[in-house]
């Protein structure tokens, strides 16, 4: 299946209801706390048709945090293999994207050294709003913004704390 077909399948099959399994490959626990807040009243994941499930067999999306510690690799692969296709892998947080921990004997440093990642969500930790946006991008309901952002100051007006 090409990337385009995969995206269409995902949008069609998951766009309205998605089951998410989280996977902690060695995070500092703060990303997990933000993920737990997704079902809190302020963010309420369920109104968007997304649900958490503890069983990988029932999951469509794997939300991975942490720098993929080598000692955890077997468990990570087992979780990924236990999910039936089509499935989406979302790497969340700076650790999972290669920051904080470089590749060394303890960690791979980045999740895509072991699992095929489809969506990356930066942040340390990514706030629940960033996570919701990322999940929306993963199922094709929201548009990806970062592609067009150059991160140069001429395009981003100076922002001080407290500005609306």
């Amino acid at each position, binding site marked *: 299946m090409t990337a385009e077909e995969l995206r269409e399948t995902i949008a069609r099959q998951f766009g309205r209801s998605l089951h998410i399994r989280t996977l*902690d490959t*060695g995070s500092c626990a703060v990303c997990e706390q933000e993920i737990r807040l997704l079902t809190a*009243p302020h963010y309420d994941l369920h109104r968007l048709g997304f649900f958490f499930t503890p069983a990988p067999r029932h999951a469509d999306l794997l939300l991975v945090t942490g720098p993929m510690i080598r000692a955890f690799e*077997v468990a990570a692969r087992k979780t990924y293999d236990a999910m039936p296709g089509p499935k989406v892998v979302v790497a969340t947080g700076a650790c999972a994207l290669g920051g904080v921990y470089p590749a060394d004997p303890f960690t791979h440093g980045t999740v895509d050294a072991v699992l095929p990642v489809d969506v990356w969500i930066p942040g*340390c930790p990514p706030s629940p709003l960033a996570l919701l946006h990322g999940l929306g*991008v993963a199922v094709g309901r929201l548009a990806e913004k970062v592609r067009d952002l150059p991160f*140069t100051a001429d395009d981003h007006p100076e*922002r001080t704390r407290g500005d609306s």
Partner: protein
Amino acid sequence: MTTVEPRVVPGAVTTFQVASPDLEAVVRDLADLRLADMFASGAEHTTLRLVWANDTAGQAGYVVTETPVDSGEYPALSDIAPAAFVEECEIYEQFGTRPAGGKPLNRMMLPPHASLPTLGRKPPAEPEEARAPHMVGGQAFEFPFGPVRQVGVESLYYGLVTSGEEVVDLYLFTWHKHRGLEWRLQGKTPEQALFLAERTEGLSAVAMTWALAAAAEAAAGVQPAKAAQRTRAVALELERLYNHAAAMAALCQSTGLSVGQSAAEIALERLLRLNASAFGHRYLFGVIGTGGASRAPDTDAIRDELPGAYSEFKRAADALLGTNSFVDRLEATGILTADQARDLGLVGPVARASGLTADARLVPGGPYGTQPAVATATAGDVLARFTVMLAEAAESVRLIGQFLDAGTAASTIELPRTAGTGLGWAESPRGEALAWVALGDDGRIARARLRPASARNWRGFDDACRSQNVFTDIPIIEASFWLTAAGMARLQGRRRMTLWFIRGIRRGVVTTRYPARPDASARFLPTPPAFRPRALTRVTADRLVASCPSGALRRDGGVLSYDVGRCTACGRCAAEAPAAVQSSGEFELAATARSVLIKRIPLREER
């Protein structure tokens, strides 16, 4: 070598040299003190250090004993001080030094199927009897739980030995999250080390960085300014507040009380937003600096929002304490007696709920001048831990007001590049967090010891769980301990029953469109930087690259390669070159291709 008996000096850390043969006698003499930590350092010449704490109010302080153990063995201390057992196992794994007597040790940090670097030398061939066996016989079986557990909790493996209903025994494997932090810290400057220390146990970021910074300051002989110390204390109390709210939410989730969980989560979210508006990060990363604090709180924001957030918290807590079905689940569950807590050297609300008075804020000399009221209880069950947390939350609000009145400021001191050793501590929401550093002549860390409270308290978990019902009580006990697996496995590396509504498989269950309008709280979130190409010279770019602790910046010739994915929005690059860097204000950064996150920013052409 001194033959003077070690004594605690209130508010200070006194260090004594003890010879290996005398060690056992010293440990017996100090039995009325709490053994707070034990660790080794030095690959070639190993020194064993024990840290003792006196918890009596008004006389709190620390004693450190140092013992060279070059022979590869030292007296078995866990026979007389059970609180030392976990550390004996860690020392064996990292340094190859075994306690005398040959009793088997548990596996702590090193996974069985991988070979990882250690802080010292490993034993050449691990002897058969070094490892304690896990064997289950008779009419019980081992129920394997984890490491991939419920949604949204950390990876942790419990082996529950059960007879089918009750917990006969429980053992934990925590090596799944072993990131080798102490190994990584070697060779870093204390400023660089704070970045990693924050991420040891992110939910205690302030406490852990405060402890490490205080240890480095003690080693370098530097004292932070009073106002900066008060800033630190405000951040620590805010951390305590949100952690207790999160623990309350977890308790409600473990008992299946969704209404309570939602109420607690509302309070938690408000507290996290308060953190973001006060200090610029929801989890208070980046507040502590060496010699003080890097950021000052927005006192107006705190004064405006804290009463509201705390009243949400109190409302949820009062409603829960008035709900008999909830309180019944908590009462007499997960009991830890005072003797068990004392023997294992537990700290934090877990210890205080069993009647001990350990609290690192009681040590004189810190910003907590007038001693904070320490809440204790005697029942030692989940309800006692919960009420202790509620009392602490009330006290935290009072303390924050007190510190803001006395004045807070941000100031840091660059540490002199000198050799030295130092011990630092802070009372994290889970208990006393300790750090010890040995700095080399260049001021870089030769050995750092990080001991978050979780590393001490997990050993009490199986005692609390025994003889309780398997499935329903363990999540409750786990929530009442409110520990992290990350805090346990930092060395060298419920039951949520989500309701799935399978209706409208084709049509789905969307009830609202997202997003309706931008969320007001988003303006306080930390965001990755944007760069001004006109201010980016090669020299500046190189300074920025060196300042990034996460490896997000790289200079390729005339282009600054900026990986948004690796950026943690810590702000160090902005502090390094404010003219070249500003906050981008973007936090919806999800990408479907990794290359999209790597931005190439042209540097200013230099003539």
